[in-house]
C-alpha cells in the first residue's frame, strides 16, 4: 500500500513558489531520507503531509485519506525547538501529549493512555525515566522521549524533522539504530529530514533531495546532477568514507 502519495503539488508564499510541482510516492515500510539546503522547503513539505498547510495546487493522500483524516496514523517529531529547559513536565507528561488526537478536547488521559505511554517509553528504552523532568535529561534522551511521544498513538507513518540535532555523536548511532528498529521490526514507514548525509546514506532505503523541486528516483541514491541542481553548487557527498554511496555511479 502507498503511505504517501503526492501529485503535482504546488505551494506559494505570495507570488513566490515554496514547493514546485512535487510528485512523491512513499511505499509502506520505506525509510526515506529527505535532504536539501536550508529554506528548501523540507519542513514545509512535512507540514503539508500533516495537513497543517494546505497546498495551492495538487493532491496529497496519506494511506488513501486526506492528511487531516490521516493524522491519527501519523507520528510527528518536530524540529527541535529551544524549549524552556525548566518546563515543569515529566517525560511521562510529554509522551501523554501524543495521545491528544485520540483523547480529544476536555477529556482526561485515562488508564489506557498511561499504559500506551509506558509502552512507548519502553520501545525507546526510556521507561526508567518516566518520572524525570524533561529538562533534566540529556539531548539524546530528550529526543527519545519525543520519539516516544510520536509513537504513543501507534502510528503507521513517522515524520522526523532533523531528529539528530542536539544529540552528541556517541548517542547518535544509538538513536539511528532505534529508528531502524522501528522501521524493520515494527513496520513503521519513516520520512526523516536530515542534514547529516553520512547518517542518511547508512540507514535509509530511499533518498530524496528537496529545494523547491523534489529530486527523487525511488532509490537510495541520487545523481550528482540532482544534488548539484538542488544545492546550487557541487556537493562532495562520498568524502566521509561511508559504507554506502549517496551518489549513483555515473551511467555515462
Amino acid at each position: 500500500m502507498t503511505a504517501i502519495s503526492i501529485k503535482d503539488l504546488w505551494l506559494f508564499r505570495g507570488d513566490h513558489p515554496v514547493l514546485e510541482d512535487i510528485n512523491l510516492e512513499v511505499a509502506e515500510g520505506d525509510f526515506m531520507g529527505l535532504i536539501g539546503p536550508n529554506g528548501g522547503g523540507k519542513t514545509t513539505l512535512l507540514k503539508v503531509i500533516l495537513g497543517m498547510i494546505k497546498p495551492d495546487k495538487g493532491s496529497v493522500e496519506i494511506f488513501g485519506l486526506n492528511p487531516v483524516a490521516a493524522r491519527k496514523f501519523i507520528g510527528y517529531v518536530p524540529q527541535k525547538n529551544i524549549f524552556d529547559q525548566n518546563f515543569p513536565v515529566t517525560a511521562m507528561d510529554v509522551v501523554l501529549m501524543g495521545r491528544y488526537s485520540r483523547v480529544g478536547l476536555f477529556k482526561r488521559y485515562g488508564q489506557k493512555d498511561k499504559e500506551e505511554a509506558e509502552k512507548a517509553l519502553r520501545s525507546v528504552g526510556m521507561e526508567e525515566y518516566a518520572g524525570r523532568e524533561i529538562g533534566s535529561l540529556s539531548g539524546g534522551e530528550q529526543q527519545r522521549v519525543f520519539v516516544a511521544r510520536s509513537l504513543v498513538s501507534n502510528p503507521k507513518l513517522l515524520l522526523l524533522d532533523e531528529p539528530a540535532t542536539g544529540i552528541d555523536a556517541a548517542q547518535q548511532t544509538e538513536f539511528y539504530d532505534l529508528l531502524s528498529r522501528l522501521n524493520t521490526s515494527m513496520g513503521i514507514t519513516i520520512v526523516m529530514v536530515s542534514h547529516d548525509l553520512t547518517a542518511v546514506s547508512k540507514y535509509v532505503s530511499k533518498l530524496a533531495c528537496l529545494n523547491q523541486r523534489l529530486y527523487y528516483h525511488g532509490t537510495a541514491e541520487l545523481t550528482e546532477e540532482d544534488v548539484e541542481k538542488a544545492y546550487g553548487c557541487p556537493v562532495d557527498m562520498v568524502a566521509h568514507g561511508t559504507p554506502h554511496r549517496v551518489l549513483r555511479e555515473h551511467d555515462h
Partner: protein
Amino acid sequence: MDWSILGFLEYDFMRVALAAGIAASTLCAVVGIYVILNRIVFISDGIAHAAFGGIGLGYFLGSDPLTFGVASALVTALGIGTITSRSKVSEDTAIGVFLSTGMALGVILMSLSRGYAKDLFSYLFGNILAVTWFDVGTILVLTVAVLALVILLYKEFLLLSFDPVYGEAVGLPVRSLRLLLLSMVAFSVVVLIKIVGIIMVIALLTIPCAICRQHFRGLPGIMAGSAILGTVFVTIGLIISYFFDVPSGATIIITASVAFFVSTFISR
C-alpha cells in the same frame, strides 16, 4: 496608634482589602504560571496598559470604568493576536503600539473629566483600600470561572504552553486556546488594576509563580504555592503600608520583589 499586628483588621476597609488580596492572589496564581510558560509577560503588560484607554472612556462617560477597562483589554488581546498573524508587524511592535495608544487615550479622556489627578493616581498605582465587598465578589466569580476552565482544559493548556507546533500537528485548536488564554489574562489584569494599579500589575501576576517555579515541580503545586505566596505578599504589604502610611500597591510589590531576589539568590 494601635501597634498590635492584628489591630488593623478592626477596620472594615482593611478586611475587604485582605479578602480582595487573597482572592486576587489565587486568580494570579492560576493565570500567572501560564503567562510565564507561554512567554506572554510583555503581552500581558501591554494588555494592562491598554486597559487604561477603556478605563478613561468609562470615567469620561460617567459609567463603570472597570467594565470599559475589561472591554478594551479584550480588544487589545484580540487585536495583538490578529495583527501579528495577518500582517508583517511583529508581536512586540504591536504590543508597543497598543500599550502607548491605550495610555494616551486614557490620559486624554480622564483629563477631560473632573477629579482627574486623584483617580488617575489610584488607577496607575492601585488603591486596595478603596476596594468594596462587591469587587471581592467579582474577583471570586472570575477566579472560579478561570479555575474551572483551567481544570477542564488542563492537558490542552499544557500542550499549548510546552509545544504549540506539535499541538497544531495533532489537531489542538492552538489559535482559539491562545485567544482564550489572552482573554483570561485580560480579565485578571483589569481586576488586579484595582489592587496594585496598571504600572505594577504584571509583578503581582508573575512574581509569585516565578518564585514557586524555582522550588516546586508540577503545575498544580506551583499554582497552589503561588496562591499562598501572593496572599502572604499582599498581607505583609498591607501591614507595612498601614504602619508607615505609604501606598499599599507599592509596598505589596516591593515585598514580592524582595522575596523574588532572595529566592533567586538561594536557589542558584
